[in-house]
């Protein structure tokens, strides 16, 4: 194997090996565990950076193993894979730092960080999967690696949430498996191919292809939290804040959305999917999810549940962008993969900070918290404005491209959905900001911890500030080379215009 073929494997191993080692560590080996965590995250980031540079300069990174006769397990780092890889490796580093601070002194840290690393391993596997089989393998590994994190606290509520999570995700996986097997019997291949590989099939197979599409979207829609398959996500909020951040911004819901992107673009091909008539129903389902998630978010007093319903809504922007089936909307959808990750992880970090520092779990407890924790709330404010779509934060760029793409495709109704969604986002985020910045703080907080002159621990404060800054920079300098927008444009160009 060439060096370039080794790199995807090294990317996998950079989190897998530390994860396995951490399992074997005693709880008291804090320094070694931290070193392994950070070394793995930094190595992964460096390797992904190397691949990013290489792909931009025309290099190919692929490794392949025979699984069964005619079926390979293959990893490939193309432009689309790299978009997700950069996001997951960057945010894994930040989340690791945050988790180290968040879990300081709590039990079962070796177990936590072990599964945490496995979870990221599965995510990068999902990102680099070169065919549906490899994708499914890592997709299911992600389910199994995340379950212990969801039930980490070990409470009855956590166990119940874990059960629901497993039921939904394994059921979704089963549907996917069904679709994949059926697809293989029709096509004889599962290899992701630019513009898809099913369009050459005889038209008599089109009804079957529609059913396969439904199977695959339903299977992936569970993790992407499309309604009515979203119910596990708000329940999973019992997990610790770093896990919530991981679920919502880095791994699970993103894996679902990313899978839908793969299916539409590299299994069916977006133009053929439009011919089959499946993109419009998918767009309508995404739009319904966007509005439903926002409406439900408004009525949640629990901060993390409000953010969870916000995720239900926001992730569907990615699917909407894909389903509109125009080059510009594709850019909007793909770039939101990164933008939503940056903004949502910031929000969950901040929610974690409020809970850990002051014992605040509800929106109604947030009066005047901006005066007590100004930096945390600055980060929260930036991310919230980004979610609303206010410029120059990254969310604005997403909505701009989705809107332009919808106009380009003649689907003007999407503008109404975008406007309504922004309005609803404002309705559930602005009251939080108002309460935090302009209401009088209470005389005592629910469970205040003392951090001296600092508002909270450094390890808890820096991650949200860094991700909030990244969200601003991603919007303000959206046209810079290697920015998420430029990279998404590069992918869309490949999908729509290159021969």
């Amino acid at each position: 194997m060439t060096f370039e073929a080794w790199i995807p494997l090294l990317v996998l191993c950079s989190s897998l090996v530390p994860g396995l080692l951490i399992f074997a560590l005693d709880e008291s080996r804090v320094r070694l565990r931290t070193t392994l965590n950070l070394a793995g995250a930094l190595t992964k980031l460096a390797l992904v950076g190397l691949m990013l540079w290489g792909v931009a300069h025309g290099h190919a990174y692929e490794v392949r193993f025979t699984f069964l006769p005619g079926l390979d397990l293959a990893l490939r780092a193309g432009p689309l894979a790299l978009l997700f890889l950069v996001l997951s490796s960057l945010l894994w580093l930040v989340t690791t730092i945050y988790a180290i601070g968040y879990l300081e002194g709590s039990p079962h840290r070796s177990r936590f960080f072990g599964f945490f690393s496995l979870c990221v391993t599965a995510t990068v596997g999902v990102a680099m999967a070169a065919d549906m089989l490899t994708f499914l393998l890592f997709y299911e590994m992600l389910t199994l690696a995340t379950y212990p994190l969801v039930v980490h606290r070990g409470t009855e509520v956590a166990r119940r949430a874990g059960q629901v999570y497993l039921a939904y995700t394994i059921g979704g996986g089963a549907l996917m498996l069904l679709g994949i097997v059926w697809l293989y019997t029709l096509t004889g291949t599962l290899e992701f191919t630019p513009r898809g590989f099913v369009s050459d099939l005889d038209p008599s197979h089109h009804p079957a292809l529609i059913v396969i599409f439904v199977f695959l979207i339903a299977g992936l829609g569970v993790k992407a939290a499309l309604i009515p398959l979203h119910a596990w996500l708000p329940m999973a909020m019992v997990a610790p804040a770093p896990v919530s951040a991981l679920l919502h911004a880095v791994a699970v819901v993103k894996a679902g959305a990313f899978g839908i992107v793969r299916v539409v673009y590299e299994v069916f091909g977006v133009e053929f999917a439009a011919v089959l008539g499946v993109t419009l129903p998918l767009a309508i389902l995404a739009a319904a999810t966007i509005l439903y998630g926002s409406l439900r978010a408004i009525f949640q007093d629990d901060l993390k549940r409000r953010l969870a319903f916000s995720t239900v809504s926001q992730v569907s922007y990615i699917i909407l962008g894909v389903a509109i089936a125009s080059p510009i909307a594709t850019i909007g959808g793909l770039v939101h993969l990164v933008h939503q990750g940056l903004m949502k992880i910031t929000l969950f970090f901040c929610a974690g900070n409020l809970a850990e520092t002051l014992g605040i779990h509800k929106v109604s407890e947030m009066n005047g918290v901006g005066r007590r924790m100004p930096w945390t709330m600055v980060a929260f404010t930036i991310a919230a404005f980004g979610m609303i779509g206010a410029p120059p934060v990254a969310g604005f760029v997403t909505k701009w491209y989705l809107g332009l793409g919808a106009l380009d495709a003649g689907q003007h109704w999407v503008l109404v959905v975008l406007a309504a969604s922004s309005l609803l986002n404002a309705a559930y985020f602005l009251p939080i900001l108002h309460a935090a910045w302009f209401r009088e703080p209470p005389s005592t907080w629910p469970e205040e911890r003392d951090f001296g002159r600092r508002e909270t621990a450094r390890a808890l404060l820096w991650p949200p500030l860094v991700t909030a800054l990244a969200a601003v920079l991603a919007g303000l300098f959206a046209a810079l080379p290697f920015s998420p927008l430029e990279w998404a444009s590069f992918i869309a160009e490949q999908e729509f215009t290159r021969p």
Partner: protein
Amino acid sequence: VSAVLLQSALLVALVWPFVPASMLAVRAVRPLAIALLPWSPLPALALALLAPDQALELPETLLGSGLILDATARVFLAANALLWLAAGWLMVGRRPMDVPEWRSAILALIAMGSGFALALANDGLLWFAAGTLAGYAFYGLILQGSTRPARMAGRRLVILLVLSDLLLFELFLILAHAAGGTSFDALRGAVAATDSPTFVLSLMTLGFGVKVGVLGVHFWLLPSFQAGTPAVRVALIAFVSAAGLLGWVRLLPLGEIAWPAAGLALHWLALATTGYALVLGMLKSERGALVGSILMALTGQWLWAIAGALQRPELGAAVGDQLPMLALQAGAGLAALMLLEDMDTGRLARLRGVIAWLAAVLIALAPMPLLGFWVDDSLVAPERLWWPSIAVALLLGRFLARIGAPGLTSPDVAGKAFRSIGGRTILASCLVITSLVAALTELIADMPTDVWSPIQTVTVEWSAAFLLWMASLSAALLIGWAGSLLLRDLPALDTPDWSIGASRALRERIRALRGYLHRLARIQLPGWRDAIADGLAAIASGPRFRARALQAETILVRWASALVMLILIGVTAVGLGVGR
């Protein structure tokens, strides 16, 4: 090298206020950053006054932006910088006592920098981003007061800001899609080529109208002027002109389009806005609210001019060129009046009175060059008589009569140390001189420096009609002043004892009228959450929907439901396939 330096100056002027804003993050240098606040507009002012026309491309910013210093940008930048100099000077040393100074300062600096970005932006997205940022910064500044009126004003402002931003987002999106770019040149081209002018103009009128207080979306304006500190009021004038009027000037290709029907509708809207402002201003005694009324009437005046230009495209270019100078002259004058509002006694009282009168005259006569465009028409044609200007003059007269009179200034404003009378007099004088220079340059069509020469001015023809209109505006100013003085013994209608001294019949009638106007003026918007969430998602917020949604969620979170649902999807999909 000099070209690069000059281009850099554009960026420096814009970014400069954000430097002290960043410094405020570091506790140790906060006093220094706050001390820098009043001087932060100086680079922008220097740029507006001294630098030649230039442009700077910023291809990596947003989706490809740019800055420009042209005739329009120059005037708006100068106006913004001047008003922010005054506001900054007032702000440092005058703030609500329970708020740390740095919080107000950081919001002010963000609003200031955004204001400069509004003036210098050469594309729709940068302009939109700056407007959004400035709007929310002002929301914070108004709410710093922590009083009930401040909360009410802030609540109204934020609802309308969200609405405005959504409408403008749609507007820019539609125009950018048609134009294939976001530069103002491209967007103007798209406006000129649009086949649905009414729709485009409606989006503009509502979107920009929120910022300038057009009737119907004006609810925030008067409460904000009533609740804001003097510094915030002065700064609000800059915001209104840059985030509202400038939008129309930048986007409408005046002179290239003839939209008579839309122009007529805009005329009526201008008339309604002005009439409402006039009635409200005459009934209010509080000076902050009165200034808000004057600003609303000025909005009517600007709209009236734009409407005229849409109806008569041959005048459009000249009107478009003249509007920025009109805004500068009126804005500087109005800010000066606000600085002099409570200074009728003490040292140099007469001098201050003269300055106030001069400021009022300059504001009232500011539209004269624009009136000159219609000088060839009939003297008495009602649409030429410029009713909004008459209304502005009447309100200015009332304001002059109220200077020094007891008002209903909010407690948090009244009780605080204010800048010295001498300092405020000097500042007001500077603003009046600016307004005077603007007036003279318009009337004699000669710019004070070479760099200002590209700004088009009209050569006024001193005809009988022109003199008649000048006289009518002056008369309106005097009538407003004299009328208010004559009636000053009657308690104002927004004081608790308004009915004392009036006859019973008159009282009853006024009470009825007041009640009606009160309802008009204070349409009760519910809380912002309710207004947005319950208003626009009424179906969702209904108990039935919520109950069903909750019930559905409860069922969905059972693991058995998940399996049943997933099996059902599979069966349906298979059935669908077989059916096909």
